[in-house]
């Protein structure tokens, strides 16, 4: 390869090919998210760290320790072909499910739930990484059904879903169950399930919520407190709202906020409140806007693609990220009952970073400009088999 060709549009090396085909708008947005995340974890976590008795930079260091592999994973995954992507996802899904099976025996219990595996001094949450892998595997199975007459991929996908959710409920982890369910529902929706069945699914979901309300005390109490703020202790939500009110237009400035001193999960489940107080309305609005931008950019790519697997997989992953961000933001703004959820790429949360990295990597990989490479090569686009 001569020098002139290096990194040009006709350079067909993996890196060069990736660079010219990847969605750079989305990539820049993701890096903006990462910068937001670093700033906010740096400002929000020391007070939390000191409160639980570890060193000041405990969380920031861990955030960076997970961020680097997450970035490598994202870039790496975004380079691989769709076929390799679902192969990788299958491996991760199986590995993750096995790890989840181990948890009841060797897992760490934190705040009444067993979700974590202890590895090399770091807590890992296998379910987090299974989540995007499941989305890709399920999407592939559903897409396969469209290709092969007698392949009942939908049923297999439903089976994988059942296994995953069963293990999640065992931990228990209702938040993730909800996200996974919504994600899977989105995928079925995109796969073309008729509205009448969707309506049935919606009703079933409602019944599940109702049963959760009556079956679990803490769910009931949270919803009651949301519906009727005077009924009980809304300390976290009140503090969170107070932080937004404090912030005003330009915020108190990074590190100058006070609400993080009171919120127990300021570095994770309430990091958006810290953003509100310290960065102010303009930057917080921009942050929410970044998520929407990434989502819409992703959906826009899906409109161009001819590939049903890309649509279902990306649609599911984007819905997952969008929903997770939405639940986090709405919880802190008291738009919905509080549900602890990390803000993708912003919150501290080891495995969740890896998971988001993998998910974004997959989205970037599937939304690369395949058509253009096809024109350059003078061939038709490869089919996924």
């Amino acid at each position: 390869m001569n020098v002139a060709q290096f990194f040009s549009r006709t350079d067909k090396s993996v890196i060069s090919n990736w660079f010219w085909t990847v969605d750079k708008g989305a990539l820049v947005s993701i890096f903006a998210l990462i910068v937001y995340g670093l700033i906010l974890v740096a400002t929000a976590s020391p007070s939390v760290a000191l409160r639980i008795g570890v060193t000041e930079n405990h969380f920031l260091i861990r955030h960076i320790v997970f961020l680097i592999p997450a970035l490598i994973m994202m870039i790496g995954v975004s380079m691989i072909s769709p076929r390799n992507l679902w192969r990788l996802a299958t491996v991760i899904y199986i590995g993750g499910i096995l790890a989840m099976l181990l948890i009841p025996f060797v897992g760490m219990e934190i705040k009444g739930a067993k979700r974590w595996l202890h590895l090399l001094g770091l807590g890992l949450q296998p379910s987090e990484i299974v989540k995007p892998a499941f989305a890709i595997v399920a999407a592939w199975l559903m897409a396969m059904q469209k290709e092969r007459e007698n392949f009942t991929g939908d049923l297999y996908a439903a089976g994988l879903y059942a296994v995953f959710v069963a293990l999640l409920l065992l931990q228990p982890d209702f938040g993730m169950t909800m996200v996974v369910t919504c994600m899977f529902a989105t995928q079925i929706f995109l796969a073309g399930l008729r509205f009448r069945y969707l309506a049935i699914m919606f009703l079933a979901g409602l019944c599940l919520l109702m049963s959760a309300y009556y079956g679990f005390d803490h769910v009931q109490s949270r919803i009651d407190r949301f519906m009727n703020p005077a009924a009980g202790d809304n300390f976290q939500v009140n503090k969170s709202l107070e932080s937004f009110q404090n912030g005003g237009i330009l915020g108190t400035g990074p590190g100058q906020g006070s609400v993080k001193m009171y919120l127990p999960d300021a570095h994770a489940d309430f990091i958006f409140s810290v953003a509100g107080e310290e960065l102010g309305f303009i930057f917080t609005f921009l942050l929410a806007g970044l998520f929407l931008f990434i989502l819409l950019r992703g959906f826009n790519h899906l409109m161009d693609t001819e590939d049903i697997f890309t649509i279902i997989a990306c649609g599911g992953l984007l819905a997952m990220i969008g929903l997770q961000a939405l639940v986090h933001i709405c919880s802190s703004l008291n738009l919905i009952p509080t549900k602890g959820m990390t803000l993708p790429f912003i919150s501290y949360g080891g495995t969740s970073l890896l998971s988001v990295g993998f998910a974004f990597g997959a989205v970037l990989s599937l939304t690369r400009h395949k058509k253009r490479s096809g024109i350059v090569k003078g061939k038709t686009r490869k089919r996924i088999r």
Partner: protein
Amino acid sequence: MKRTPFSKLSFTMTGNRGAALEMARSRIVLLALVFIVAYTIVGIRLFDVMILQGRFWQDVEDTRAVEAAVQTKAPEAVRRGDIVDRNGAILATSLKTASLFADPALIVDAQETAKALAALFPENTYENYLEKLQKKGRFVWLKRNLVPEEQHAVMLIGDPGLAFQEEYKRTYPQGQLAPHIVGYVSRDEMGQAGLERAFNGLLETEETVLKTTLDIRLQHALRQEIANTIDIFSAKGGAGVIMNINNGDVLALVSLPDFDPNKREKLDGDQIFNRATLGVYELGSVFKIFSTAALLEKFPDALSMTFDAREPLKRGRFTISDYHPEKRVLTVPEVFMVSSNIGTALMGEEIGTEGLKAFYKKLGLLSKPDISLREVGAPLYPRPWRDINTLTASYGHGVAVSPIQLVAAVAPIVNGGLQVTPRFLKPEGEEEVTKTTAMRVYDEQNGEIMRSLMRLVVTEGTAKKADVPGYEVGGKTGTAEKPGAKGYDRKRLISSFMGAFPMSAPKYAVFVAIDEPQGTKESYGYATAGWTAAPTVARVVERMVSILGIPPVGVATAETQEDAEDMGAKTQLIAQPVKGQAL
């Protein structure tokens, strides 16, 4: 193949790949719309919480609440500052006392407790206490500012519903000495009169000490002598001022009758009324000081002018006559010395309406004096001012001023011509008013002539009883009839003497006015200033010189005289032999 929703779906989809993609795309649009709507709601909510409900708008309200909280707390937390005289003697101070209140909710036996309280503090009845003790609320005052023995007795009652709150009680250790200057405070320590009122804001801050220009020794002397004169001449009241004419320090200010600020339960308005600053009076002939001074200013050869006082002066429907008619042509010093109304009225005519008005205005006699006490009376003068008013105003009829205003106006005429403003607070450091800091309002040479004329009044004229040997007292008497329902009342007089000493280099002005004195056997029935106010000033000056240790004229050294006021105790010792000499 099994019939499941999914299998049916897959049948449809595999049959038409393009249709499946179309459907997926339309559903992506739907999905995107859902997210757009959701994030728009988030954006609106962010705007709502951060901007509309934000601190940005609510700052005003927040601080108001905090301020209100601070204000309701303040009166019990802060000790009010002291007021002291120029030598540090305490005029007003706040003592910590216990105040008794009840929390009716905690009262165990209301009847027994009420009985015990009624026995202890008989000023309220058993029913009264019982009514308070069985009230609905959680707080009711029973008695404020208990002395320790009373507090102990209340504790022995032993009811848990009785409790104390520490409070400060304003006390005035000098009692009746200077109530009009010091003033007093309300139940909740808000200044109501005098300096307590004028400097309420300052006194409310902790650890302030308000140092006044007052000297309680002079205050005592002035008050006692005026009270004595009132007594002798069965007068209605009196007022007096001692002022340092070089810097405006008010050393003493008396208004009688007065009151004890510690016991203000039964006061009448006459006692509270400050005659020295709030009351304005037509003081009569003392105003001849001003008209004569104005004449000197207008005519350089004034001393050679003569005025015909042989006949009462007729101007229009007015007739001006003299009290002790000389029935001859008088020179200016003679007019001043014998206090001729006719002569002075003719002088006024020479000066002219505009000239006299302008001169009075220059001395501050036609505007409200600028003093720190809030009890200030504005002068009364004829409006409109006709030419006839110039004649009467030249001998003090028709113009009413307060004693403090009169003293302030006389000061520049005798102190070398510099304007002074009476002051009640002693500034740190700065002492005399000098030519560079004060405004010149009167000529120095004419001032010297005025001083000799005023001295003449004491040596040869109407105020012989004002003399204190060795101290060159000078001044002017004034006996004015008080305006009654039908013109001026011959029986109701205000007799006053405006004095200053020593006339060769005056430092102190002493003014005394007696309200409605009645003649006695000793005074041969006279109640005029020469018999009442003049001798009072003489006695005050006698006491002043011994208190301040002022040596008689000729004996004085510059050093002792300058420090006299402030080095009270020390100079007093030095003064003892001097006093003997003086008398």
